[in-house]
């Protein structure tokens, strides 16, 4: 009986054993009466724990395929007589339920399930303060204005807003974005903009058109966890470049590029998620130089640059790019609200065409009505009206978080102060692990994202990401107080490192 175990895939070994034996039995390669090897013997020959084989055999017994007999060992059972309730099956063998495990693609095995189960507890339900979800503050959503615009767009004769639309997106929205971006130095036209169902989709489509399993890509470390997940699922070989106070370290990048040919470089250069850093102008120029030199495209993810709290942000890489090397992703999610799933991608025409083709197969096009309403909302100047409000408010919230930390933080905790964006990136006191803090903090009803979620390999365990965009200054102060309490408690009682009960998050973690 020959079994092959693949330790590189995510399927547990006992399930691999179980399903292979099952196949052999169903194919009659192990006929009824065949005696399976004793558990210990099979375990030794496969190089696994005896428990693994015990579990595999247990499953097969539960399904009636094999039967242990005292003194004789484990024997393959004869086929079951037909279950009378399955009257329409003429075959005498019992119908096995589908072993879905055997069906999933290699890609799906690789799908990154972040360190934390990605379901977020209902906020407010149990008085929990979450600094985890990277979400804008609901209080500032322009609900009324949006509702009025919706009513206006959904006038009785405007059925066009509900029909199938072009994959590339609603022209007026693309035109608005072209003008809007041009005002910010990114000169582009409607034709080179694709409307996406959020920049997550932009990342997914780019991955689809560029990445084969085993392809190299380069990302910053730490980096946006949603991107890491997509790249990992595609089977990419991820090379990382550290980030310092000036952003991505181009000297390290240069070394990497001299040795590897990555398919692209992924960067979030302004108010990075999670570190909050901004790539300096010098580094931006250097990055582009390297991209041109080595012929490597750059994927620039830019959700936060409008949320600046000090000076206006530096020009985007895309606006500095003279040779069509940069693919630019933007979104309404962080500057306005995320619930509509609406973003954009600016890319050279050839790439845009490929992305369009890929998108067509994924969801035909992004919701027509969402685009119509958003276009009208923007054209009425409501986005521009909204931005200064949230810039001001989030700055206050950032400051509230920094003030609270300054007051309550125990010795050893440090944090960055970003000039924009959503997050404070904190370093924990020596020897403290984010995972352990997570449990303690959860007891105190405060959560955050542990730093290792933003690392590809095993770093970031001593970091945590705190989002200040979502809550009021008062809530932030309270949450920081609780968090610092939790940290202090662990500092004073180091044995409280316990096992983590993973908090459940019901919204996707971004």
């Amino acid at each position, binding site marked *: 009986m020959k079994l092959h175990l693949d330790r590189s895939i995510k399927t547990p070994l006992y399930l691999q054993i179980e399903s292979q034996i099952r196949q052999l039995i169903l194919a009659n390669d192990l006929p009824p009466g065949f005696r399976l090897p004793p558990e210990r013997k099979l375990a030794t020959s496969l190089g696994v724990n005896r428990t693994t084989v015990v579990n595999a055999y247990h499953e097969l017994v539960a399904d009636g395929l094999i039967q242990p007999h005292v003194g004789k060992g484990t024997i393959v059972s004869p086929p079951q007589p037909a279950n009378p309730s399955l009257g329409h099956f003429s075959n005498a063998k019992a119908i096995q339920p589908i072993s879905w495990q055997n069906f*999933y693609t290699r890609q799906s095995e690789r799908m990154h399930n972040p360190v934390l189960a990605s379901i977020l507890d209902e906020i407010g339900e149990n008085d929990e303060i979450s600094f985890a979800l990277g979400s804008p503050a*609901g209080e500032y959503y322009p609900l009324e204005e949006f509702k009025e615009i919706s009513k206006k767009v959904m006038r009785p004769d405007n059925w066009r807003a*509900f029909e199938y639309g072009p994959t590339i997106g609603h022209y007026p929205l693309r035109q608005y974005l072209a003008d809007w971006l041009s005002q910010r130095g990114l000169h582009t036209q409607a034709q080179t903009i694709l409307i996406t169902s959020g920049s997550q989709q932009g990342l997914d489509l780019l991955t689809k058109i560029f990445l084969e399993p085993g392809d190299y890509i380069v990302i910053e470390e730490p980096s946006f966890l*949603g991107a890491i997940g997509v790249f990992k699922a595609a089977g990419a070989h991820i090379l990382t470049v550290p980030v310092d106070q000036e952003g991505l370290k181009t000297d390290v990048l240069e070394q990497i590029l001299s040795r590897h040919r990555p398919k692209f470089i992924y960067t979030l250069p302004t108010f990075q998620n999670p570190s909050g850093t901004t790539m300096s102008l010098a580094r931006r120029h250097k990055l582009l130089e390297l991209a041109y030199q080595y012929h490597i495209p750059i994927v620039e993810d830019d959700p936060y640059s409008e949320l600046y709290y000090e000076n206006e942000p530096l020009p985007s890489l895309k606006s500095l790019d003279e040779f069509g090397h940069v693919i630019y992703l933007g979104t309404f999610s962080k500057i306005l609200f995320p619930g509509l799933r609406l973003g954009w991608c600016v890319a050279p025409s050839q790439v845009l065409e490929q992305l369009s083709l890929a998108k067509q197969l994924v969801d035909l096009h992004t919701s027509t009505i969402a685009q119509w309403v958003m276009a009208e909302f923007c054209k009425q100047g409501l986005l521009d009206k909204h931005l200064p409000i949230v810039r001001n408010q989030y700055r206050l919230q950032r400051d509230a978080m920094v003030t609270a930390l300054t007051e309550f933080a125990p010795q050893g905790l440090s944090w960055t102060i970003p000039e924009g964006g959503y997050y404070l990136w904190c370093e924990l006191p020596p020897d403290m692990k984010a995972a352990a803090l997570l449990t303690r903090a959860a007891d105190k009803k405060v959560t955050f994202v542990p730093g290792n979620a933003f690392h590809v390999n095993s770093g970031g365990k001593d970091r945590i990401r705190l989002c200040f965009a979502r809550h009021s200054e008062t809530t932030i102060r309270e949450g920081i107080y609780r968090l610092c309490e939790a940290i202090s408690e662990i500092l004073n009682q180091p044995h409280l490192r316990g096992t983590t009960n993973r908090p459940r998050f019901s919204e996707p973690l971004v």
Partner: protein
Amino acid sequence: MQYTYAERVNYMANSAIRELLKIAEQPQVISFAGGLPAAELFPLSEIKESYAQVLGAGDPSVLQYGTTEGYLPLREEISAQMRAKGIQTEADNIFLTNGSQQGLDLITKLFINPGDVVLLQNPSYLGAIQTFRSYQANFDTIPTNEAGIDDLALELLIKQNPPKIIYLAPTYQNPTGTTLTLKERKAVLRIASKYGIPIIEDDPYGELRYDDEALPSIRSCSTDNEVIYLGTFSKTLAPGLRLGWIVAEKSLIAKLVVAKQGTDLHTSTLLQRATHYYLTHFNAVEHIKTIRQAYKFRRDYMLTELEENFSDQAIWTKPSGGMFIWLTLPERYDTVNLLPHALAGNVAFVPGAHFFTYNGKYSSMRLNFSNPAPQQIKQGIKLLSTIVAAY
């Protein structure tokens, strides 16, 4: 800059058909080519009211991130509708998508490795074929004889070349309009079950029923989650919304959650809430009856016109639901070559070749009756018969 694309991009061909059909969008062309529901039948004011209500409730969570599997009350509502159709299911078995196109994409992503075989009807839905192709699947055709699906041949085929999944649109299929009989459904299910092959049951048109009673879905006949069911609001509400659902067992839903998170996090929160409002405050059933009436009329009209103009030139299906009639001309015709002539004569259709997974010369074409107005149907069919005769 020279970009190096992944191999799968070679399988994402832009249908030449799309280019040709752009011509069909011009106002003077009578188009039987689209797969469009009739826009004047969209329940616009009810949709508008639904959006206004959910936006006017003062609750910002309507524009907030949501769960990947979807808004629970909407999943509950859909599962109730499914149960009413005989599909035993709960909210936990419902997964919301950006339309059934996304359902197809996610399932294919989860199941198809390059080279895996998809077993399907030929012809089949173009969007599905393209999706499978984009994941580098191979195809096999479900064998049929004059009586329909040949179950002996089917079982033999599966034994010899086991497919990874079976794709079926058993009710008012796009493009042929045909419906699998109960016998055929049970046969496929029995064989798929026996060999442990999942079935994707794609059912966008089930509600667009004009004549007989509804046949039970394949999912409702299954006992063990062999069938993954795809539903959508595109044809009963409006297609531009992009909202559909998958019915599957929980472990598959869990995988779909992970897959969709990487794709776009979740389907629009606002859309789901507004749809839930619509379903629970307006008479969706009445609206569907209105659609049925209107489309039945157009179907009958087209059938009459076909009888008038084509009775000695072609054969065609007489669908008891859906949006399409499948017309087959005598063998000497190649409808791909015929199309430019038709367009020049201001009438459009989709040549049959685009719905088959293997190349060949086809004399069939798909005609949509849901979108054109009755007057256009009359004119267009007449035009078409003239063009065919002259070819």
